[in-house]
Every structure is written in C-alpha cells, then in structure tokens.
C-alpha cells in the first residue's frame, strides 16, 4: 500500500497548498498591479502587507452568506464547488516537480497521477468541464447580468478550446506522445536546444493566449467585466462562494503556467544549473525550484498582461478565435506534419513559425481592408477618414 499512501499524501499536499498559494497570488496580483500603477499596494497587515491574504481569508470566511430568494438554490450552491473541483482535477496529471529525479525522498512524487497515457487530453477534457461552474452560476442566479455573463463565458470557452487543443497537437506529433512526463523528459534529455519553444514559438503563443481565455483572465474577461455586467456571472455571489470562484480561477492560472513551462520551456531543465546529470546535493530541490520559477514567471506575465492589454469587444474576441487562432494553429500543425513527413530538420519550424505569423498578419490585414471596402457605407467612411487624415497631417505639419 505505500503507493496508495504516497498518492494520498500527494493529493493532501496539493489540495492543501493550492488555496494557500492562490491566496498569496492574489496578494502578488495586488502588489504587481500597484507597482504598475505607481501605487504602494496593500501594506498595512503584517510586514510589507504579507499577512493581508490571511486577513482576507478570515474576512471571506466570516462574511455573511447571502443567498438571494429568487435563485435556483441547488445549482446556485453547486456552481462554485464545480468550478474549484474541475480546476483542481486538471492539476492531477500535471507534474509540478522533477518527476523521478534521483536523490529526492521517495515519498515526493511531484505528480498526483503518474503515467497517465493521455495526460494532455485529460487536461483538455477536464478543462472543457470547467465552464459548467460559470454557466450554472450565471443561470442559477436568475439575474440578467449573470445570465449575460454566463452566455458570454460559454461561447468563449467553447471557441477557445479549439485553438488550445490544436496548438499543442504539434508538440504531440513531435514528441510522439501526449504524456506530460514524457514530453518533459524528451526536452530535458535533449538539452537546451531541445526546448519546444525553439520549434513551436507560434504554438506557445497560441496556447498561452487561448488558455488565458479559458481562465477568463483579463484581456478575455468579458464574462465578468465590471463596466458592463456589474460582476458578470458572480454578481449574486458573496463571501466564501464568491471566493471559491476565484480559487478556481487562480488554480487555473497555476495549471496553465505549469503547462506552458512543461510543454514549451523544458520543464525543470535549466542549462548549467539543472541538468539531468547534475549531481550536487539537493539537486532535486533546485530542479523543483526551477520549474516553480518558470511557472511563477508565467503567472507574473499573466498579471502584468492584465494592466497592459485592454479588454476585447465580444466580436473581436470571437474573431480572434475563429479567424486568427484556429487557422494559425491548423497551419502550424500542417507545418509540423510537413517537416516530420519529409524528415527535415526540426529547426525549419523556427523560421516557419515566423513566416506563418507574418503571412497571417498580412492576410488578415488585407482581408480586413477588403471587408471594409465591401461595406455599404464605405465611401462615406472613407471621406471621414480622409478628412481626419488630412486634419492630422496638417496638424503635424503645423508643428
């Protein structure tokens, strides 16, 4: 039974650690946001505000639980739980440390369910269930704002699942497996030059973007945008149920960051420091920290993106998924197939990705121009534009 015991310990550690980590991620988000906006951020509770998450947690626990009388009680109560459940379940196949590293204590396995043959597909399957939390929460609230948020969320998640899945198919083809541990192992044994980011930079971009959309993070948070929908699908939620939704969102962020590091950035490999044959004492700890560091980097990127890119309009959101990301990920997959079939060097994919990106940029720009030209009001529009341009040019010339 030691195997079972190890599994139980790992589950307990992960389930115990993730809420704490999420709590501190919220602090990180507030601090980073503050620094980006030239503020100080929370600094009252404890040194440097480090106890703020604890205070927040206690507040959320002790707050009054409000259940409005007009809601569908069962679904209203299930929805936040579902949202956390699916987010945590996806983490089950994500290796969060050097799996099978020498020297690590045997009770540290760094993955809840090792050797899952369909690792990536499992994550997508569970991830596709994550939308239920949002949809049910929005519907059960029996509130127009919530329902609109839920509608947006379901359309968005269903659309972005496609590029999310297709962008990593290239990696599955290159590695010949969808088992996350094996994908990581392949990059590690190949060294720095075998990191997938060198061959699949476009896929990395598509994957990261699509998973931001799946997690409802800011450039894609139309489901809860405050300016239009009050709070979106969680308008009616309060106290701990509201917190559970955010626990789900932050868990999703952690999973995405780990996945991006594992799929594209070589897992725990770092040239010169964490190599497969590095044998100094506590090497496993360094490897663990390297992987965590990469994940932390992506989390920081996500938080900073929040204050960098403004929110999309809904038609832009759909257009990005269907007209840009899906064709691009298909083309990327075709490129991998081409390279594999003719047994070319993998390095062809690096310029290939760049060329695809540039070509698609030009195609969509010209398509947009053509579409604008075909609009009935084009002439009038053009006149207005010309006027503006002329005005601007004159203005510039005057300076």
């Amino acid at each position, binding site marked *: 039974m030691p195997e079972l015991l190890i599994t139980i310990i790992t589950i307990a550690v992960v389930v115990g650690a993730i809420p704490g980590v999420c709590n501190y991620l919220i602090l990180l988000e507030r601090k980073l946001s503050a620094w980006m906006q030239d503020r100080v951020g929370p600094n009252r509770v404890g040194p440097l505000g480090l106890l703020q998450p604890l205070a927040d947690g206690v507040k959320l626990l002790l707050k009054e639980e409000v259940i409005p009388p007009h809601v569908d009680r069962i679904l209203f109560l299930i929805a936040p739980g579902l949202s956390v459940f699916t987010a945590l379940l996806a983490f089950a196949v994500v290796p969060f440390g050097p799996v099978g590293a020498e020297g690590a204590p045997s009770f540290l396995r760094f993955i809840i369910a090792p050797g899952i043959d369909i690792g990536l597909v499992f994550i997508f399957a569970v*991830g596709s269930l994550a939308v239920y939390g949002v949809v049910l929460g929005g*519907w059960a609230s029996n509130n*127009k704002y919530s329902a609109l948020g839920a509608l947006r969320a379901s359309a968005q998640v269903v659309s972005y*699942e496609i590029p999310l899945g297709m962008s990593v198919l290239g990696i599955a083809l290159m590695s010949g497996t969808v088992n996350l541990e094996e994908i990581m192992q392949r990059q590690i044994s190949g060294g720095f030059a075998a990191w997938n980011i060198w061959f699949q930079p476009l896929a990395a971009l598509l994957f990261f973007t699509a998973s931001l959309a799946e997690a409802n993070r800011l450039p894609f948070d139309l489901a809860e945008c405050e300016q239009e929908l009050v709070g979106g699908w969680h308008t009616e939620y309060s106290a701990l149920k509201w917190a559970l939704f955010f626990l789900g969102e932050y868990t999703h962020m952690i999973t995405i960051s780990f996945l991006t590091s594992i799929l594209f950035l070589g897992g725990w490999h770092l040239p010169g420091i964490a190599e497969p044959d590095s044998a100094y004492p506590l090497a496993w700890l360094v490897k663990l920290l390297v992987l965590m560091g990469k994940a932390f980097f992506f989390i920081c990127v996500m938080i900073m993106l929040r204050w960098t890119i403004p929110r999309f309009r809904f038609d832009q959101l759909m257009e990005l998924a269907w007209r840009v990301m899906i064709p691009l990920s298909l083309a990327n997959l075709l490129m991998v197939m081409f390279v594999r079939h003719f047994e070319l060097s993998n390095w062809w994919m690096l310029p290939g990705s760049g060329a695809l990106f540039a070509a698609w940029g030009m195609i969509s720009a010209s398509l947009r121009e053509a579409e604008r030209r075909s609009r009935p009001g084009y002439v009038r529009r053009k006149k207005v534009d010309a006027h503006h341009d002329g005005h601007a040019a004159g203005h510039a010339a005057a300076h």
Partner: protein
Amino acid sequence: MNEWMQQHPASIGGLVLWAIGLLWLMPSGKSDKARPGLPGILLAAAGVVAFCLGAGRGVDTLQSEVMFWSFALTALVCGALMITSRNPVYGALWFALATLGTCGLFMLQSAPFLAAATVIVYAGAVIVTFLFVIMLAQQTGSAGYDRRGQFGIPAVLSSFVLLGVVVYELQSAPLQINRPETPKVAEVGGASGSRDGGTMTSPPALPSPDAPINPPPPPSVPALLSRATPETPVGSMKGLGRSLFGDYLFAVELAGTILLVASIGAIAIAPRREEGAL
C-alpha cells in the same frame, strides 16, 4: 429470436417493466402537475434489476465490479432523470452526468482516450451548447411546452425495441469479426461481459457467471476496434490511431467528408448579415 426470448424471460420482462416505468415518469402533456413519481421509479428500478440479472455478466474482481456498477448506475439513472426532468436545464445537466458515467465505463474498458474525447465533445461542447440555447430561450421561467414530454410513447417504444435488439445481437450472434489468428488478442478484458470471450466460433452461447474467465489478456487493442498487432498496447492512442487510420481509413474519411459537407451546408443556409442576422 424465439428461442432466445424463451431463454431470457427475465431480460424481456425487465425491459418491458423498465420501459413502462420510464413512460410513467416522463413529463406528461395534459396537466402541469407531475404524476406521483414513486410507482414509476419502482417499476423502472425493478425492470433494470431484472434485466441486469437476466442478461448476466461475467464476475470480475470486487474492485472492478464496484466501479462498473457505480458507473453503469450513474449513466442509467442520470439518463432516466434526463428524460423525466421537467426543467430543461436540469435535463441537460443530467445528460452531462450520464455522459460522464458512460466515460467511466470506457475507462474501465481501458479506452481512456475514447473517454476523454467523449467528455470533450459531449460534456464539454455539445451540452454546453444545449445549455446556451436553453438559457437564451428561457429568460423568464420555463414555458408550458418545455415541461411536457413530446411523443413519449413512440420514443420509449422505439428506444426500447432498439435496446432489445442490440442486447439480442450482442448475446446471440457469434461475433464475426476479422481477427488475428492469435486467439487471446480477441478478448476485451471482460468488464462489459455480455459477450463470452474466447468462444467466438461456438454457437450462440449464454454468458454465465461461471464461464471461464480468461487470464487477464495481454494489452491489446479492443477486438471490436481493430485487427490488432499484439504489441500495440490496449486503448493507447497509438493503437487507436493505427486502427482508425489503418483498418478503418475509408470509413473515417467518409465520416469526415459527411461532417465537412454538413458544416458547409450549415454555413450556406445560415442567414447572412445583409439578410438581418446579428
């Protein structure tokens, strides 16, 4: 057929009871009040139990028995709740749960990829789209026509006739499938059980609990799916892919073409912006 019916009175009776129970539970057309559910539940449950006992299946290890029955019951009960539920949203949710139960069964048959793909397609996309439409359609509570089962009797009749025929085929027809010569590759691991593994050439055989349970087969692609080469591991993506794009390439391409034509058709008949859509 007659012979089979005489041999399996419990199965037939169970099916009939089950059908009547479901019919009773379905939301009825006339009144807005629901019938008392208990008789229907009892009938359907008795029918399911009789059917399962009558159909019989090989006995497995305790663990897989427990797993099988919990997944199977989840799928069956949620399926029944789906068609008897008076609220369309709940109906869609029960459908999702029934799908998850079925995926659990796939998992038990060591077809994890099939399970994951079903979750992605059905629970993740199709039912979410249903929910989407239902939520759009019912902004103000459910309408009367939403609470009513349409065509209850024909639906129940046809589906149970279909179920009966499928069970009959599975139990009585010898499986005529191209198999490799090695006999042990053909076994599917014994969890679904109404087939009697290893006796493919024998006349219609009743599966009985004391039928010889083959030693756990070496990993292999499920026999129904492929002429497997013995070294492709069971249910792995590699095996499934080899089967789909090797043995069944034509069928896969045909299905793909039909889907492509259907989606082109959908785009063609959808109203365009000039015609007043969005």
